[in-house]
């Protein structure tokens, strides 16, 4: 009587075979390496800083130190002095260019033959504040006065509104006391809905990180789905199932192969793009769950596909919705409700929070829980679909 072979032995044998098959498939091996190289290269090419400065042209503020006070009043504000309101208006309207050299601003009409002064830097002025000549005196006397705000048509309404507030702040900064405010007017109150990332915006590298990670997971999906579809189409799985291997062993092995290959590739990328800090274990946990999520999806895709092209088609059909949260992370603000219910959302959100904003285990717990629930659901569904497929061969 032969001794029964252990489940671990069987599963290990299938995993080793799957990995060997993966490695020997030249197309997938090439694509995998290519995606890894491209992703890592693109990450380092992208800028890692955020330009949060607003350049404002100012005329009529001649008091010494006024512009410096103005810049100090608002983080990221750069004030460029203009000799006259007309120059300022022309520059904001796009009829002239402003060049700064040695603290002086030179305005050059776009239609003229004059060239930029030597050693000058162009000032990108899209907002202008033109103060009347008696602004300081009037403000100091507590009299009502009027400043003109020039804004380019492309400047968002939020910025236009902010400029009104800025004028009041300038008055305060210049005069050194509260600017008379009409008490009948509603006091301006900013209520930030969702996450307030002001002054803490993600750089292009940070914003693209989830997409890069998803490219790796996408490769895992296609490779796993392809391996599964091939095993079904060529009926090799039926030969495996007349040995001591059970359907459960085959499914467990596929899950492990998928999770392992996805995790290893993701770790390679995260190490190469220096993104495993500040919580490496937490990031690896997120990636492991992400790989399991994708493995479950690959089981569904692999069971559905009938050949290489249809597997590719179904793979794309399943991958696109999963990619949406990664693209949503490119844009500031809170993602739409329908994006938040996608299975990959907790993964993307968790990755962004941890790698970009340094969130820890406690802050990421809701995302981990949601991701775990999705993993159980999708992997379970993949298990059922693949089991049915295998049993009907």
């Amino acid at each position, binding site marked *: 009587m032969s001794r*029964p072979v252990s489940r671990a032995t069987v599963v290990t044998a299938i995993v080793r*075979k799957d990995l060997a098959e993966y490695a*020997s*498939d030249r197309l997938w091996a090439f694509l995998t390496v290519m995606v890894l190289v491209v992703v890592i290269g693109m990450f380092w090419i992208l800028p890692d800083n955020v330009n949060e400065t607003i350049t404002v042209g100012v005329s009529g503020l001649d008091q010494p130190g006024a512009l410096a006070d103005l810049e100090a009043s608002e983080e990221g504000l750069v004030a460029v002095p203009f000799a006259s309101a007309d120059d300022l208006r022309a520059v904001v309207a796009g009829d002239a260019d402003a060049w700064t050299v040695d603290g002086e601003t030179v305005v050059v009409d776009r239609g003229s033959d004059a060239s930029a002064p030597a050693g000058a830097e162009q000032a990108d002025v899209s907002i202008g504040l033109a103060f009347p000549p008696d602004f300081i005196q009037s403000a100091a006397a507590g009299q009502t006065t009027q400043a003109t705000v020039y804004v380019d048509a492309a400047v968002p309404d939020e910025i236009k509104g902010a400029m009104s507030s800025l004028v009041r702040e300038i008055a305060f900064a210049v005069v050194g006391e509260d600017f008379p405010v009409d008490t009948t007017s509603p006091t301006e109150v900013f209520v930030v809905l969702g996450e307030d990332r002001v002054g803490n915006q993600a750089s292009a590298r940070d914003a693209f990180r989830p997409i890069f990670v998803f490219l790796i997971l996408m490769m895992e999906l296609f490779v796993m789905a392809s391996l599964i579809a091939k095993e079904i189409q*060529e009926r090799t799985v039926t030969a495996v199932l007349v*040995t001591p291997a059970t359907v459960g062993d085959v499914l467990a092995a596929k899950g492990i192969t998928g999770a392992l290959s996805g995790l290893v590739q993701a770790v390679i990328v995260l190490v190469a793009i220096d993104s495993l800090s500040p919580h490496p274990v937490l990031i690896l946990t997120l990636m492991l769950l992400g790989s399991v999520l994708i493995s479950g999806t690959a089981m569904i895709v692999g069971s559905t596909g009938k050949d290489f092209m249809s597997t590719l088609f179904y793979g794309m059909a399943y991958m696109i919705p999963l990619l949406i949260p990664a693209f949503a992370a490119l844009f500031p603000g809170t993602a739409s409700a329908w994006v938040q219910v996608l299975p990959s959302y907790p993964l993307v959100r968790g990755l962004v929070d941890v790698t970009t904003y340094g969130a820890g285990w406690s802050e990421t717990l809701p995302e981990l829980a949601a991701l775990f629930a999705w993993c159980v659901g999708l992997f379970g569904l993949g298990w059922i679909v693949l089991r049915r497929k295998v049993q009907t061969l």
Partner: protein
Amino acid sequence: MTDNAIDAVDLAYSYGDVRAVDGVSFSVAPGEILGFLGPNGAGKSTTIKMLTGQLTPQAGTVRILGMDQRRQREQIQARIGVCFEEKNLYESMSGKENLRFYASLFGIRNPDTDTLLRRVGLADRGKDRVAKYSKGMRQRLMMARTLVNSPDVLFLDEPTDGLDPVSAQSIRNLIRQEAERGAAVLLTTHDMHEADELSDRVAFINEGRLYTVDTPENLKLEYGQRSVKVRVRAGDGVEERTVALDDAAAGDTLKAAVASAGLMTIHTEEATLEHIFIEMTGRGLGG
């Protein structure tokens, strides 16, 4: 408890409204080769799937080596070998790698792949990828894979399909060797000569029902004609005579024919398995 290697009792299986297998019962003893014959769609594959644990019978029981297929599946799988009709090998792997992988599923760490490959005539092609194998080579590798765990029960589905006559004969020899070793063999084939040559007994299945299980000799005696055909040279032509063996004068007639200088051939009028199958079921084996 019986000493049979395979015991199938009242097996039944339906795909929807289609009754694929209906009350099939038979047994195979250790060392016996049972030819399982029937046209496509007769229920052969479904029966084998139930015997090998790929399908759970909807009715009836399967015992392999005295063990219940439902309750002792894993112990059974460890001691059987299955050769499929479709060439389900891993094409990107070499012949040796295929054998090593299947051996590892049985917990065999260092399989003697060289011996296995030599037995099927692939000793010098073991390192080649299966994708480069011809149809016949794949079939031979399938046979080697079936033997990787030295099984006590073999299920062979068209094992010589696509092979040249020499390779087919070597596979038949291999099957005989396995039976001589003590393995029970359930052999499905469309080649009636092969079934006749290899099988200790044959089973006829058609439309899900088993018609008979008996030795080829008994079937031929029961369904064949007891007659001899004699061909003698007569002048410039050939004269052919059929001698009924039950005829009282048969002995004298045959003696005279043998003594005749013009005797060319004497043939028994034995029925073929295909003729018997058609007579029993009213349907050919071809389709």
